[in-house]
């Protein structure tokens, strides 16, 4: 600011007189423009009506919009967003197709004003959305109560938002998939395995109009599936939190303990914001046999090392959708994240400490932090800038500085406060929704999903806001969010291209339009669980540890730690030779293709079904579809040859089906 003023004061750059130019341009314009009113004429109209409209529109719109260049409407068709302090002019204030500023989430018009009620101890502070309490390290935003809409209304809104993008681009979406395909993908996405033949037939036996919702409710809420649902989602979130290698031999963490915590949380329907709070603020022992056991502590135990930088970056990514990692070393040129922001977030973990106990377990705790200058009251951290300068950092949450900088636990439990702030942040809902959407469709609303911000365009901003707000309204009941997504129109679309949607190819870098179901490879855990079911291996709820170890041994062949600062891993379950060998000759595959009484193959072979029915069952079990006419003809001709062993043929067909691309693809 001062540079511009100095330039004017000392230099030659002074304000011009543009009066004549403007008047000339207005006059010249008015000759050719039909229907334009003069300024004088407009002044004669009553000023009250537009002002009242503007005032209503502006109610609740907070100040502090973070504006990015891409977020501003084009000049040629510009609608100017206004927020005047002294009674505002407000030409239509519309976000464009880019991003929506984060501060708008609490005032977005996705929900009508009637739906929104603000509560809190100080309603007079509503304009700032904060409750002031000078004694606390932070001002926690007032809780906004949003009315939860009916499921059908939310699903209709999702469909409308998605379809609107198709219409804008004159795009014809893919046709609806077969019900068998939908059933398979629903099982895979919700409980992490393919459906059995019985489950598929049961689904198809439902009444047409209710079958979709019935199946979703069954998988989400029925006790028979609680264990599988919880296991699947504990795996998904544990992978997001600590990766597939987290909890390996060289790590302090007890992966089984973390999985158990996540599994119990999903089984008991704990709101996800509570789960996030417990993970970030956890203290306790990692060993499930210890009195001080706290499975949630394993998240931080896994990531803590010589410093807490990995915890900082992972916490920001997973719970806030903010990629701060690059800012550890330098301010991020693209995302507007300054280097100090990373270290201010890292300062929340300054009190964190670990202790290796005699029994081999590890304990996570908090202790007073005195800072480098031995000051408890002003406990600072330091970081080095690229220039070599050393800077000081105190706790600040995404730019919101703490009211106190104490390192004394009793006064300012920094990690617990971070957990509170994350829990109250609208970014938590956004990051969760983005991750869920990506889980179901293969692509989230942003690419990547954990890098939200004005620099990263959102494919469907209004839909993203709607889902985030309704997830908050549901008090983070993720089962509901899952239900909305699975029952959406987009989730029922075929993976086959329509004549006009071939450009909807996010695999090639375009923004996803969800006009078709994006085919993708199953996650190794999903293949493993599917093979387990087909092998007839019963899960023993009392042998979780043994089963988890067996799964990890199987997965361990495909996952490698990349040894990067970000703790990245590579997943080699993507056509690598190890995948091929495991799928062709691995121990589990041998079990699945065994004629044992428990296996799917064994049961089919031993049944009294005719050969065509046996073949149909094999296809349904592996691919959730019946064989085509051509496939049937080829196989049944072969089987009917008296010189071949029919059982051997079915066994080979079964093996071939499980090794086909169709089996390992979600389509």
């Amino acid at each position, binding site marked *: 600011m001062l540079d511009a003023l100095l330039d004017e004061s000392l230099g030659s750059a002074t*304000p011009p007189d543009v009066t004549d130019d403007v008047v000339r341009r207005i006059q010249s314009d008015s000759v050719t423009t039909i229907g334009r009113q003069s300024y004088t004429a407009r002044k004669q109209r009553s000023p009250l009506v537009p002002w009242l409209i503007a005032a209503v529109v502006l109610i609740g719109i907070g100040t502090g919009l973070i504006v990015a260049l891409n977020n501003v409407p084009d000049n040629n068709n510009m609608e*100017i967003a206004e927020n005047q302090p002294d009674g505002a002019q407000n030409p239509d204030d519309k976000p464009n197709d880019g991003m929506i500023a984060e501060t708008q989430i609490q005032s977005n018009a996705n929900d009508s004003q009637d739906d929104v009620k603000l509560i809190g101890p100080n309603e007079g502070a509503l304009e700032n959305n904060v409750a002031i309490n000078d004694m606390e390290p932070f001002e926690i935003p007032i809780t906004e109560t949003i009315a939860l809409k009916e499921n059908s209304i939310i699903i209709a809104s999702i469909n409308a938002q998605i379809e609107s993008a198709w219409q804008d681009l004159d795009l014809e979406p893919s046709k609806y998939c077969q019900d068998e395909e939908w059933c398979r993908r629903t099982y895979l996405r919700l409980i992490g395995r393919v459906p059995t033949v019985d489950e598929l037939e049961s689904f198809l036996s439902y009444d047409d109009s209710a079958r979709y919702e019935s199946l979703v409710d069954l998988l989400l809420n029925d006790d028979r599936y609680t264990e599988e649902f919880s296991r699947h989602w504990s795996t998904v979130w544990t992978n997001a939190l600590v990766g597939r290698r987290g909890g390996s031999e060289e790590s302090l963490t007890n992966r089984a303990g973390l999985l158990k915590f996540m599994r119990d949380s999903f089984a008991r329907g704990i709101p996800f914001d509570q789960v996030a709070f417990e993970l970030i603020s956890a203290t306790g022992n990692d060993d499930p046999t210890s009195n001080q056991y706290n499975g949630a502590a394993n998240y931080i135990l896994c990531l803590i090392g010589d410093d807490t930088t990995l915890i900082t970056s992972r916490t920001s990514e997973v719970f806030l959708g903010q990629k701060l990692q690059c800012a550890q070393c330098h301010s991020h040129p693209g995302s507007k994240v300054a280097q100090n922001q990373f270290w201010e977030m890292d300062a929340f973990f300054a009190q964190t400490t670990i202790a290796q106990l005699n029994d081999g377990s590890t304990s996570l705790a908090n202790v007073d932090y005195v800072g480098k200058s031995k000051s408890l009251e002003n406990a600072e951290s330091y970081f080095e800038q690229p220039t070599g300068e050393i800077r000081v950092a105190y706790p600040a949450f995404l730019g919101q500085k703490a009211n106190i900088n104490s390192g004394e636990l009793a006064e300012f439990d920094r990690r617990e406060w971070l957990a509170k702030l994350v829990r109250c942040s609208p970014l938590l809902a956004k990051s969760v929704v983005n991750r869920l959407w990506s889980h179901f469709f293969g692509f989230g609303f942003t690419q990547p999903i954990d890098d939200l911000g004005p620099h990263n365009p959102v494919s469907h901003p209004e839909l993203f806001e709607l889902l985030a707000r309704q997830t908050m309204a549901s008090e983070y009941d993720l089962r509901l969010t899952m239900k909305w997504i699975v029952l959406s129109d987009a989730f029922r679309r075929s993976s086959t291209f329509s004549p006009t949607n071939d450009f909807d190819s996010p695999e090639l870098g375009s923004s996803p339009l969800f006009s078709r179901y994006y085919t993708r490879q199953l996650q190794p855990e999903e293949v493993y669980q599917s093979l387990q079911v087909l092998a007839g291996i019963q899960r023993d709820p009392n042998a979780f540890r043994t089963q988890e170890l067996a799964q990890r041994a199987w997965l361990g062949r495909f996952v490698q730690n990349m040894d990067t600062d970000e703790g990245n891993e590579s997943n080699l379950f993507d056509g690598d030779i190890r995948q091929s060998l495991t799928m062709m000759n691995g121990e589990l595959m041998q079990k699945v293709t065994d004629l044992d009484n428990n296996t799917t193959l064994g049961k089919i072979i031993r049944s009294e079904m005719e050969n065509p029915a046996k073949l149909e069952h094999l296809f349904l079990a592996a691919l959730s579809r019946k064989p085509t006419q051509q496939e049937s003809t080829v196989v049944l001709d072969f089987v009917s040859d008296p010189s071949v062993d029919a059982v051997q043929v079915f066994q080979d067909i079964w093996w071939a089906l499980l090794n086909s691309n169709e089996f390992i693809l979600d389509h």
Partner: protein
Amino acid sequence: MITQHQSGVWRYLRVIGCEATLADDITQETFLKLYNSEFEQLSDAATASYLRKIAFNLYISYQRRAGRTVLVDDISVLDTTWQRWAGSDNGDGVIEKLNECMEFLADRAREALHLRFSEQRSRKEIAQSLDITEHGARNLMQRAKAQLKDCIEGKINSENNIGDPE
């Protein structure tokens, strides 16, 4: 209205990073845009704020079309600061205060700023002219600007306190 607000709009554009000649053009465009909008004059402050918003959006739009992906700081913070500094006189007062504060600077600091802003000299040339290192020239100007900022803030605060019945 143009006469009354044009210097405020132009200065606002300059403080958000717009170079002078572009600021001239956007100032014109701002008033044209105002003319084409559903505008009602309520108060000078409201009009000034409205004009700043138009100018800001035009500037951002121009930058985007030029393929520049520069991000702009939080506009509400910028607005608040500018309103406090510029007051109701479109920034004339703050320029006056700046000139007064310049008198309090050390000669070398004033000279450095003069070379930089009046003669458009590079930091290297300023360093040579003052017989100091480039690093020293940078520090000298940074300190001078910090002093100026404090001085201006002090004058603004003192004016506000005088006007405050408390």
